[in-house]
């Protein structure tokens, strides 16, 4: 069953010089119990896409077109009040920076309990007990004591666990994790990834994991969508992305990952150029100016996501490569 289906989503920044497009017709879907990884460079619109679903876009940034069907409703058409009820109870969030994403003046247990009181109308005592259970669920030792700790008394990894507990408090069908490990040590990163995977299976929820770290989500995601300049350029099961990366951008991304087998002194390949700024995207394929396979036809029209011949689940937005494969 499809849980979330985004179709042709566009997001614009209102500027004095007129609107600048940052997300340009994204198509994405998440099925129940699936975990989707969304990969892309900073500013490619991966966070904005997810924030737009629940009405958390910053001022002056708006979803201007498309649909986002979640359980049959178009999230983009809901009122502010309806969206507030979706947040937390149907779609949970975990954020990037655990050091600053907890309110410093509320004890962590109370912070979780407060959400429960207002989301579910629980009594204070019941919410507190539930908060302790949630802390135990995310693997915090001695949860009764930790519930009374202030945020600044916990380490980064512990705080991220608390954030996850908060994201899970409303028992959501989908958890959106917006680069939740970027601010953590590598060893802690692995723990958090394991924890989320385990919780996903145990609670039978979908997970959307936003990151720029391909290697990190290799072990977590069922499917990966690669974003470039506000469009999906490749959408495929995780093995296909790593075994048969097809879009030139995906290939370049994977090519710039360091490997243990690589020669030590070799310079790590990088993609020349920078992504286009919002409002200054080139005509046709946005990646064309940086692409090694560029053809004159690339600047004619924006390429659409097409299934690969022989693999319906592997979709690529590059006619040039697709013809080469065919």
């Amino acid at each position, binding site marked *: 069953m499809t849980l979330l289906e985004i179709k042709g989503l566009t997001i614009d920044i209102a500027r004095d010089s007129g609107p600048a497009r940052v997300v340009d017709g994204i198509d994405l879907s998440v099925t129940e119990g699936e975990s989707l990884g969304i990969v892309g460079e900073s500013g490619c619109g991966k966070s904005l896409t997810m924030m737009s679903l629940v009405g958390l876009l910053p001022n002056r940034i708006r979803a201007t077109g498309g649909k986002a069907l979640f359980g049959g409703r178009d999230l983009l058409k809901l009122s502010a009040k309806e969206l507030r009820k979706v947040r*937390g109870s149907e779609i949970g969030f975990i954020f990037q920076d655990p050091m*600053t994403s907890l309110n410093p003046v509320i004890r962590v247990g109370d912070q979780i309990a407060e959400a429960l009181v207002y989301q579910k109308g629980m009594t204070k005592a019941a919410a507190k007990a539930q908060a302790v259970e949630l802390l135990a669920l995310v693997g915090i030792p001695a949860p009764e004591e930790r519930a009374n700790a202030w945020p600044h*008394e916990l380490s980064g990894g512990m705080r991220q666990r608390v954030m996850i507990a908060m994201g899970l408090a409303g028992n959501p069908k989908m958890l959106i994790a917006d680069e939740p490990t970027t601010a953590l040590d590598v060893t802690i990163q692995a723990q958090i990834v394991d924890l989320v995977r385990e919780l996903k299976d145990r609670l039978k929820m979908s997970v959307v994991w936003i990151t720029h770290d391909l290697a990190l989500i290799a072990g977590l995601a069922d499917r990966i969508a690669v974003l470039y300049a506000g469009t999906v350029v490749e959408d495929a099961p995780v093995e296909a992305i790593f075994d048969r990366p097809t879009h030139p951008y995906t290939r370049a991304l994977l090519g710039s990952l360091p490997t243990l087998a690589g020669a030590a002194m070799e310079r790590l390949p990088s993609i020349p150029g920078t992504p286009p700024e919002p409002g200054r995207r080139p005509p046709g394929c946005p990646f064309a100016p940086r692409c090694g396979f560029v053809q004159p036809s690339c600047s004619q029209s924006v390429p659409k996501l097409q299934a690969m011949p022989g693999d319906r689940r592997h979709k690529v937005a590059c006619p040039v490569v697709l013809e080469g494969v065919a």
Partner: protein
Amino acid sequence: MAMIDIEDRPSSLWRDAWRRLRRNRLAVAGLVIIAALVVVAVFGPWLSPYDFLSQNLDLRNQPPSAQHWLGTDDLGRDVMSRLIYGARTAFMVAVGVTVVAVLIGVVLGSIAGFYGGWFDRFVMWFTDITMSVPQLLLVVVINASLKQPISLWMEARYMETLNPIWRNSQIIDFVLVFGAMALITWPPYARLVRAQVLSVRRRPYVTAARAMGLTNRLILTRYVLPNAMGPLIVAVSAGLGTAMVLESAFSFLGVGVTPPTPSWGNMISDGLRVWTNYPHLLAAPAAVLAVVTVAFNFLGDGLNDALNPKGQK
């Protein structure tokens, strides 16, 4: 697994601030003086050696003596008793005015900063206008135009009910002086709170609170305001001192507390007329006012350092 030791007694931000404050000698001195002021203000009637109104025309303008530690004024009233009662006036005015002004400032400033839009523009426009009117002028106008009608109205109530409360001139004083001073002192609080709210509402934990589906009102009261309080506390501490000085200034000019209710301001005003002959009548209230004002400023500075530890070295 990464773990850190948790102290037996969890230390909160406020406890840390209190620890830093205690290390600041000037701030502690200020705090002690203010505590003494509060005690004197609250227990004044039991502490003062004489009634502040009783005149003794045989002992006018006495220098300090064993009977009258700070001498007597031109009506033979004990200066010390009047100073003690004046502390009551000053304290009540300072606290009353500041509480009203801070309440107005916090409510308007936080709503303006949090929601923005037309309400924000309206509040800022209103503070601009209020702050551009000369304060003294505004208070004089309010006093001059409202005191008479309110007195007449209260006298009429007295005639109807014969309840002596309607003849208590202190009530008019406090309503008018409080009201006028609150009206001129709230805009800076509103601006301060608005600026703080504007910066705090962008912090990640506010976004996280939104993502949990909390209501705006809850986010404002539990997430934004508590984290915006530090600078406000500093401003309140300095503002209490300013309100006392302001009350003295208005009483000095005759638009504040009406005699015979003693206020440091009207004592200074009375003392100024005769200071060449009886300097103690000017020196005593002026010195007390100066010391208390300085105490509030020391405490304000200390709080500023204690609540913004990043500001130091």
